[in-house]
């Protein structure tokens, strides 16, 4: 029976009960009492800073007041009006760098109103009722192709369907959800929430889904433009950056994105192999999600190594603290030089760096970490963008309304320029592009 100190990449380091506990809900839903206590703390600010900080401009003081006055379903409607994936965003948004960082009670007491958890309370309450709060407008006779059933595509599809357009939603995978389904730590979205949310969203009607249809393969942009009045691309970033270190082709060196996707799709976590000593390279949310989940799967030692300092890390302080609280060690200012091992990875050599604003140097000072599994989380890139689209800094170039360089083609989410690569930003971009498509078609 394998355990934490079993060498190599093996499954079953922890028993099923321990795994179930480890991968339980990070922040369980507030109960009604907790929600009322939390809601009471909101000051109902004027032109509230939390709203300004929200990429989807949810009227946060209003929905919290609606919770406080005993109408959580109305609160949910306030949220969904701006963000149809408000349920997922309540779970995965880095609120500590968005609404809750801006909360005046963070300024006042260092304890913001629990906006994310209140949002989940409201959206879960409405979604648990099984009803869908929107109705489609009369059919417009226009059809729109939405490519990618991730946050951007889902938000666009819902808004377009609501406006009365006939939407066909394509996704390369067999399941919808995009990163919500394949790319976010399991403990942030338990109990199949990503799929339940899509099923609930599709209740709007008017959306035909075509799964297993990848752009450039089963469908082409040219054909979509022919067949539809407009096309929205929310195809995400399908590729990953290569690791520029000697030996990075050795066995045991994997993409963190693939590791997380496999974990999210695993029926049985105890059948999922993980290394004894895992080294995660990178400093973003994907790196944290991969590192923490490796630890939760039973790896003995998990080390995250980031080439710049803590301030530069794109994972928030909260995420870094989460990682260290789960037993992940974080090494700042080091980058990999070589992966060593006889066929399979055995250790990684790193060189310390010096970094600061506008400064980055690799030093001669090196160290070595034993590793039987190396997870690369050094950024995702746009893979195989359809030809004819103007690309800027590796992404599909769009204007403020989401229009690409091709007439009739819009794009949003991680694949497009503008905004951070966050679920909530993707939702805002999908929604806004849908509005622009609507005003263009009508």
């Amino acid at each position, binding site marked *: 029976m394998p355990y934490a100190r079993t060498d190599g990449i093996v499954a079953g380091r922890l028993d099923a009960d321990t795994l179930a506990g480890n991968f339980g809900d990070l922040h369980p839903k507030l109960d009604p009492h907790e929600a009322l206590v939390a809601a009471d703390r909101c000051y109902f600010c*004027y032109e509230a800073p939390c709203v300004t900080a929200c990429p989807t401009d949810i009227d946060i003081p209003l929905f919290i007041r609606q919770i406080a006055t005993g109408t959580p379903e109305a609160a949910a409607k306030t949220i969904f009006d701006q963000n149809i994936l408000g349920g997922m965003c309540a779970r995965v948004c880095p609120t500590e760098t968005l609404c809750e960082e801006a909360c005046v009670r963070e*300024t006042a007491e260092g304890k913001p109103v629990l906006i994310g958890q209140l949002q989940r309370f409201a959206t879960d309450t409405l979604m648990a009722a099984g009803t869908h709060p929107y109705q489609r407008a009369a059919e417009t006779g226009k059809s729109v192709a939405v490519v990618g059933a991730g946050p951007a595509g889902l938000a666009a599809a819902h808004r377009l369907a609501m406006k009365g357009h006939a939407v066909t939603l394509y996704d390369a995978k067999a399941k919808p959800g995009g990163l919500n389904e394949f790319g976010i730590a399991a403990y942030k979205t338990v109990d199949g929430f990503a799929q339940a949310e899509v099923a609930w969203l599709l209740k709007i009607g008017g959306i035909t889904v075509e799964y297993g249809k990848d752009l450039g393969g089963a469908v082409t942009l040219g054909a979509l433009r022919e067949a539809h009045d407009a096309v929205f691309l929310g195809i995400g970033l399908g590729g990953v950056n290569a690791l520029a270190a000697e030996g990075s082709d050795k066995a045991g060196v994997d993409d963190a994105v693939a590791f997380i996707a496999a974990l999210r799709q695993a029926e049985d976590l105890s059948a999922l192999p993980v290394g004894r000593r895992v080294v995660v390279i990178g400093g973003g949310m994907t790196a944290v999600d991969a590192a923490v989940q490796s630890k939760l799967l039973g790896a003995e030692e998990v080390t995250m190594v980031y080439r710049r300092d803590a301030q530069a890390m794109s994972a928030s302080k909260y995420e870094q603290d989460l990682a260290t609280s789960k037993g992940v060690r974080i090494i700042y200012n080091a980058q990999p030089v070589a992966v060593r091992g006889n066929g399979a990875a055995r250790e990684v050599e790193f060189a310390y760096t010096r970094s600061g604003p506008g400064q980055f140097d690799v030093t001669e000072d090196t160290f070595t970490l034993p590793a039987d599994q190396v997870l690369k989380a050094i950024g995702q890139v746009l893979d195989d963008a359809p030809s004819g689209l103007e690309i800027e800094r590796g992404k599909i170039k769009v204007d403020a309304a989401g229009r690409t360089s091709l007439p009739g083609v819009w794009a949003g989410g991680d694949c497009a320029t503008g905004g951070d690569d966050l679920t909530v930003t993707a939702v805002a971009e999908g929604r806004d592009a849908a509005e622009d498509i609507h005003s263009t078609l009508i």
Partner: protein
Amino acid sequence: MANLSTDFVGIKSPNPFWLASAPPTDKEYNVRRAFDAGWGGVVWKTLGLDPHIVNVNGPRYGAVYGADRRLLGLNNIELITDRPLETNLAEIKQIKRDYPDRAMIVSLMVPCEEEPWKFILKKVEDTGADGIELNFGCPHGMSERGMGSAVGQVPEYIEMVTRWCKANTRMPVIVKLTPNITDIRYPARAAHAGGADAVSLINTVSSITSVDLDSFSPEPSIDGKGSHGGYCGPAVKPIALNMVAEIARDGETAGLPISGIGGITTWRDAAEFLALGAGNVQVCTAAMTYGFKIVDEMISGLSGYLDEKGMTLDELVGRATPNVTDWQYLNLNYVAKAKINQDSCIKCGRCYAACEDTSHQAIAMNPGRVFEVIDAECVACNLCVNVCPVEGCITMEPMAAGQTDPRTGKVVEPGYANWTTHPNNPSAKAAE
């Protein structure tokens, strides 16, 4: 530590904190716990004639909450004691014997005839109680039977019953007044005329706390119906403070001892009642909300305050009364401006919303959510201070004489000038 012992109309108690006549003083068990906890005295829950009354068998209380479900107001439809008279009398006698240093006042309510009063006064005197309080305040139930506030709303009845009591007992007589009248001075004057040793106020305010929006019953609901109850707790404190002050500064009742009641929750509340002229205070809702232990905070807070001020309790009583005046005598030469302390401001913008939407457009919202008062518009209404969630962040700063008020363009005059001499007042008298 300041000496908090008081002598209120000859009734001595180790501190000025009495429990008001109410459920906490209904029976021996509770009162023993109260005295063990340190309360200076109790006013025993109102006694009546046998056969004793009955209470409803459903909810007796309704509530109004503030943030975090803090109880701000409580109403009740409970009546006077629902236990036999002799049971109460025996317990009162035993308690007074066991706690001789504490004040034991007995609240009474019997029909408006002299005989029942004579009868019950004799019974109470036999217990060794220190005094009586006439319940002319209860606004629900008993008032339908011609007692409680039905008496308290008719000054002639107050005077008559007070006179009967003074004639039939050696015990000090405290008359408890109802706030459910238009001018508290009239019942107070009537009590004074009848020979009352003191008045106590306020009793509860007639109220419906809420309506169930599914059953459409007022709360508290008894089988789908509700009846107006008596409202008390922090929400009624401002009403009570004003009424205490009105009696304290009325020429006809000035000097009449007052036992202050109404939403007293902390030592500060108590000190405010004392400063406005109450000789002691009575507490109920705060004890019902937090238990008897709150008296520890009241004692430590009040004695600490008196020590800090170098003041005796007697010196505090009535200290603020002379500062209660009519509007017409307020100094119109006093000009203040709101000032927002940027260091403590948390940028919620509530002052801005309040001023911009509902007041004088005297706060600017500058880039970076920097809120600043526009002196040329500020009338010093104080609303921004009141809605600001941070204590002390916004203050009212008086302007010095000789400065020009940018709102009016007028120089702030030194000295005092009020409405009686203001040129806009048609009945102004020229200064002599």
